[in-house]
């Protein structure tokens, strides 16, 4: 099975990158690919629990991230990016795994292809 890694570097809701990364992850996993979604830098903010879109008209990307996890996308958030964005490991969406930069580097080496958002 082909393995696609997707790196999200941008925070949600500010531009389309986070929404596109989640959409591509869902598309990939339903298309019979193994998908790893890796959140680094501002992308770590997507992992934050408690996102509430009521009254905004936005799609709740926290819920969409949960959908990814439910559909067996491997969802990782880079440890130092969490700290840089003041998010504690207890305050992230259930099912998101905290990973070190070394673990992420090894994963990228093994992935067949990588997309960057």
């Amino acid at each position: 099975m082909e393995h696609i890694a997707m790196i999200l570097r941008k925070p949600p809701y500010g531009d389309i990158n986070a929404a596109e990364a989640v959409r591509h992850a869902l598309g990939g996993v339903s298309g019979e690919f193994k998908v790893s979604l890796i959140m680094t830098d501002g992308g770590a903010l997507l992992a934050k629990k408690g996102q509430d879109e009521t009254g905004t008209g936005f799609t709740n990307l926290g819920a969409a991230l949960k959908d990814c996890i439910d559909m067996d996308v491997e969802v990782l958030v880079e440890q130092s990016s969490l700290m840089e964005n003041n998010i504690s490991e207890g305050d992230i969406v259930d099912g998101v795994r905290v990973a070190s930069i070394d673990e992420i580097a090894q994963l990228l080496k093994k992935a067949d292809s990588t997309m960057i958002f």
Partner: protein
Amino acid sequence: MLVIIRSAPNTTEGKRGVTLAERMGADIVLLQNGAYFAQKDNLENFSGSAFVLADDKKLRGLAAGDLEERVKNIDYGGLIDLMARSDKVLGMF
């Protein structure tokens, strides 16, 4: 493995790309504002091979004296060869 860096040294993207390249044991090619990484001391912790696109360096007025000697100049043809020779290309950061 080759990582393409197009963001400046003072950006999160640029630092992320160089860090990942270092951890993966990959080489880097510096394009656009990534050319500023070729300046002295910007690649202190990077142990792989580094290449810079000569046009982007010249455009930004980066003189030979400002640059790390180990960063090799390439032209567009050289960039294509580098990418073709690499088993995997990751970018752009």
